[in-house]
């Protein structure tokens, strides 16, 4: 319990730090959003003082002291009121984020867990059968796949399975002809659209988990308790799973938490390639349209999701390791 309380405290502190970082990020940057918007306009002709004032007012150029700005920002965060989007005026940022969030959570969440479980199992097999093809094949192909840029894997799959073979749709989360509803037709359609992005994330992230688990387990296989278990004539499966793998999963789990950010980052690229209307695709569009309120809210959303996932991983770690229970 003390372990969980400690982790919870750390989580809250980290959350606060991330929220604060998000506040200071635009303020540390040279220029302001208004300047950028004006510079954009200026390409088409001179900008008058009146136009400038109008733009600054519209973009909510911050006024008041830094503390007042910070206070009102915190209020925004707590009430989830991030204002109105520039590019998709008059939609609110919150409504746009809440539309996009489920797609990403389901796609990235399920695929990442699947990839981790699969990679861990393959890693266990590779370490246990070290030096055989069962080791070298997944290790080599895994390390090769994990060096593929996410967007390139996405492009290749899209090109061959989408454009050349026409097995999968090439864009969107569902067909333009269907409307979102809880029907088998819609769900089937949505699954078909999610297949290629999911496959991309799975293939690209799998290698890292395989190698991480393999190396962790090679370490535990050299530990004395494994030698002693062999000396006591335990069955191979017991030694591999309950002794070596059971202990190797702990460092691998920590690695999983820390690598999550990378997977989420990669999924942004994947969503962009497939035009999949999740958080990443929205972030990309916000950046292209210089939609700063949307961008800031999305970055916060992504960060908070990863923090929560890390917190859950910490809790799981606590469950798996009796040494944290003291």
């Amino acid at each position: 319990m003390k372990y969980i309380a400690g982790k919870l405290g750390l989580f809250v502190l980290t959350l606060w730090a991330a929220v604060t970082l998000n506040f200071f990020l635009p303020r540390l940057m040279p220029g302001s959003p208004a300047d950028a918007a004006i510079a954009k306009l200026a390409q088409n002709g001179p900008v008058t003082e009146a136009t400038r004032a109008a733009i600054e007012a519209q973009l909510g150029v911050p006024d008041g002291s830094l503390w007042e700005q910070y206070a009102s920002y915190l209020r925004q965060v707590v009430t989830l009121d991030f204002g109105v989007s520039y590019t998709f005026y008059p939609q609110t940022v919150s409504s746009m984020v809440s539309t996009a969030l489920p797609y990403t959570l389901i796609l990235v969440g399920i695929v990442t867990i699947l990839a981790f479980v699969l990679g861990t199992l393959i890693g266990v097999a590779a370490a246990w059968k070290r030096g055989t093809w069962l080791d070298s094949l997944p290790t080599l192909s895994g390390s090769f796949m994990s060096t593929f840029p996410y967007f390139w894997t996405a492009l290749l799959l899209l090109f061959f399975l989408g454009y050349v073979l026409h097995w999968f749709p090439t864009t969107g989360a569902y067909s333009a002809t269907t409307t979102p509803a809880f029907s088998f037709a819609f769900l089937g359609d949505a699954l078909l659209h999610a297949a290629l992005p999911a496959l991309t994330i799975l293939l690209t992230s799998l290698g890292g988990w395989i190698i991480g688990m393999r190396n962790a387990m090679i370490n535990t296989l050299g530990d004395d308790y494994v030698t002693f278990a062999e000396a006591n004539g335990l069955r191979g499966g017991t030694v591999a799973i309950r002794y070596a793998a059971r202990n190797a999963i702990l460092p691998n789990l920590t690695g999983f938490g820390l690598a999550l950010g990378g997977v989420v980052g990669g999924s942004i690229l994947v969503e962009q390639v497939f035009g999949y209307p999740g958080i990443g695709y929205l972030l990309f569009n916000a950046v292209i349209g210089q939609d700063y309120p949307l961008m800031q809210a999305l970055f916060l959303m992504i960060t908070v999701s990863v923090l929560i996932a890390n917190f859950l991983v910490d809790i799981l770690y606590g469950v798996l390791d009796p040494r944290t229970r003291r």
Partner: protein
Amino acid sequence: MTSTQNVRIPTDGAADGAVAATSRWRSFSRTLGVVWSNGKARVGIVILGLFVLVAIFAPLLAPYDPKDTSFDRNLDATGAHWLGTTAAGEDVLSQLIFGARISILVGLAAGVLSTLIAVAIGLSWGYLKGFASEVVGFIVNLFLVIPGLPLMIVIAAYLQNGGILMIIAVIVVTGWAWGARVLRSQTQSLRGRDFVTAAQFSGERAPRIVFREILPNMTSLIVGSLFGAATAAILAEAGLEFLGLGDSSIVSWGTMLYWAQNSNALLTGQWALLFAPGLCIALLALSLTLINFGVDAVSNPRLRDGKATK
């Protein structure tokens, strides 16, 4: 491999004679021997060497100027254009050859810079005790859990069109934390060794203990995190360029893919335009990952001994 020398210990100029130098050189060459004895690492070194050579001699190797738009557009592979031409009428092979320069430059620069930060922070964090260490630890963990690419994207969006230097800076800011964490735990374990206490008893001051006693014992870990950081930097650079967040007028593998997607190479079926730049990125990243298999074996003998059974 020139990159490894760059992170090597900031020698403080105190000429302790050729002896120390030879001993360090000896341990360095022994390390190199272990790396080279690993088959995977050897393949990696060869691939990396090829890319470096291509980058250096790009003007000699490339058949055309990579920015020359005077050719027919969207050509498939022909005798004159082995990999075809782009939608703007540039030679794909020439772009590919010159693109190696950007990736290697970014990988090297961002890798070295973030490793330097990682070394500075990781070592002081590991050597410090008490509250200061907790604070540093919190900051490092913050940078670790905050997703790197989204942060890069947001920073890059604020710093409109900063070009390649901006990309390097963004990668460094977001990429040092992992190395710092790894180096810190090693520093902590070395700090508990008697030779560090003994150095205090020999009247050594803290900076010299950190840089002359502890740091040289972590060479393989530092090289490992350098290659790891360089790999991440190369992939991140390609990703940012692909999103159009860098300077899209330069010739790099990332911008090639950016233009390829924007010009609908998928629809025109120019597979070489899509395939070749990505493969180069993957191979370059792979070469570094493979070298790290060998470097890992230096710092973790358990990963090494298994080779003997083969």
